[in-house]
């Protein structure tokens, strides 16, 4: 039972980090109809800024943290302004491939900076990222992971309310569906895109911290962790924030349970699932969910009528 709860907690905390990445992807998709391949790069860039300031420059951690988050948001904004703005109205697949180019730029420069050694991000409290944890009924609840969970909950609530209450929620979808018609409604499509990339950047900044914070360290391969949010977004439905959250939790929990129980599962099914199965399992789930619900669990269905 303890093990089960532990696996559940691990899954939930993984899921909450994924959700921060996933929501960023969803926002960009919702407003621009583009799946951004540059998003994982944004995630690690944020962590890079924090580390550069807090560790290399000796800036107090919290200041570095805040600057890092804001910087990531701004980088998102700049990327949008310089590279994506000229693409307004162009085929979405071209834009998606363009984000690969952006990913190449961002990560090459960042990797050059990261270099050989794993980078760490510094630590606000000596016990925060390290061994600080609550032990409840034998289950270790790590502070860093709890913080990820809370951050995710706060960001999600905030965004949900923002998009429910403000007119920007619907406007965003409108821009994605038909930019020209959206323009004709007086929606400033450019501003929406900028806003979306800014928010996505900020979320990426947070995600970057939780992916690489504490002893997790920032390495040249850290971005792969961000890439794992992809099936989460798909499962939830590409244009749904609640979907992204649910999808992330499904992926996180799947990963958590497979991590803790793969041997038991193999004993039951009677054959080896192979090393590395825990990262494939989410894709299997995604595969079947999409076959049953082509638009994901919460995605808006594409309208087809003649």
């Amino acid at each position: 039972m303890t093990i089960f709860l532990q696996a559940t907690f691990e899954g939930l905390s993984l899921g909450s980090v994924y959700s921060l990445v996933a929501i960023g992807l969803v926002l960009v998709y919702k407003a621009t109809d583009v799946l951004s391949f540059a998003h994982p790069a944004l995630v690690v860039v944020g962590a890079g800024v924090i580390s550069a300031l807090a560790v290399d420059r000796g800036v107090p951690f919290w200041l570095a943290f805040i600057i890092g988050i804001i910087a990531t948001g701004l980088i998102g904004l700049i990327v949008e302004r310089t590279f994506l703005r000229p693409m307004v109205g162009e085929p979405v697949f071209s834009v998606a491939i363009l984000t690969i180019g952006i990913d190449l730029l961002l990560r090459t420069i960042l990797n050059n900076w990261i270099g050989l050694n794993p980078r760490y991000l510094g630590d606000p409290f000596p016990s925060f990222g390290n061994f600080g944890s609550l032990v409840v009924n034998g289950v270790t609840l790590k502070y860093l992971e709890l913080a990820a969970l809370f951050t995710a909950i706060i960001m999600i609530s905030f965004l949900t309310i923002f998009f429910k209450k403000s007119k920007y929620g619907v406007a965003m979808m409108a821009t994605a569906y038909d930019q020209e018609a959206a323009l004709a409604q007086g929606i400033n499509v450019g501003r929406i895109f900028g806003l979306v990339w800014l928010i996505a950047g900020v979320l990426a900044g947070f995600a970057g911290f939780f992916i690489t914070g504490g002893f997790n360290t920032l390495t040249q391969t850290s971005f792969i962790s961000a890439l794992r949010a992809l099936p989460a977004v798909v499962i939830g439905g590409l244009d749904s924030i609640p979907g992204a959250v649910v999808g992330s939790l499904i992926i996180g929990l799947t990963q958590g349970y497979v991590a803790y129980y793969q041997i038991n599962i193999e004993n039951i099914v009677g054959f080896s699932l192979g090393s590395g199965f825990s990262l494939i399992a989410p894709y299997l789930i995604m595969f079947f969910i999409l076959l049953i619900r082509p638009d994901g669990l919460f995605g808006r269905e594409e309208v087809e009528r003649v």
Partner: protein
Amino acid sequence: MRKRPDLYTNYKSESAIFSTLTQKVWFVLLLFISLLLPFYLSNYWMLLVTTSLLIAIASWGLNIVSGMAGQINLAHGVFVGIGAYTSAVIGGVATSSVIGFELDMIFWLPISGAVAALIGVIISPVSARLKGLNLGLVTLAIVFIGSHFFSNLKFITGGAGLGRKAAKLKFLGFDLDSGISIGNLILEKNDVIYYFSLILCILLGIGAKNLTRTKIGRAFSAIRDRDIAAEALGINLFKFKMYAFALSSFYAGIAGSIIFIISGGVEPGTFSLLYSITFIAIVIIGGVGTVLGPLYGAFFFTMLPGIIQVILHALGVADTGFFLNAGEIERIVFGFFIIFFLVFEPRGIWGIWFRLRNYFKAWPFSY
């Protein structure tokens, strides 16, 4: 007065592959140059050219299913992998860890295409259920599931991180691995592969063109643009999507079966998401849905890094102690190229070419 270049006077010339004399002249000229290339280019550039040709074949495949038929496939690289492993098993050497039958190319080449096509057919029903990006995302799962299989089927693939040797180049009993000599002419293995690729590329390129100018290609485009309307016109969606997947995978399988012979072996890690996405990028950068686009894209993707490197070397940038090394500069320049190409011409290189052509056609009258 000059004849109007686009005026067709009979059906035959209109439906021909090269509808104008200029086009025919260009083709013959290019063919001639291609045949002479190995005598003038260094091994390094020949390698890049050969690779480009094979990548172009695979990209045509993707262009058939995604560009022409609109069925987004993010797992094209997996089909290339299936072709590669099929040929490696049939034409490769067995070792203590992997199986191999050392059969002739005459067997493994078509079988590689066929096996890939078969898997394509097996996957195609998914496209009856899903459309557009959603289909793409399901195929995304196939990338990961596929590479998991590749990593774990060690008796076929040699396993992750080690891989296996590719098929042997034996054609109609001739061992081409050590090259051939025709009279005074000595062709090394690389040259042999080049000519082989060139022939395949021309044949399959013509095949791709033939698709576009016949009912099959038109039906693909119809499905892509408006599937409901296509169905109401009597096009069986299921059947034609299946054709698209089969043809696409066939191209991928053929390309895959040869391309790894050049690099000597296949390693499962190759067939990552990035690999599949590369083909998408090639098709988009080259020009979606066009016949020449994937060819342009393949050359762009394969040759450009080499060219950038040469230029960087010539400029001596790598040695100046700049904070980025030559490899990194190459990547960044490459990244910028992708971005600027797409910003400047979202329809890809083909679009640029098309524009230029139109410009000169209309010149000096701009409107």
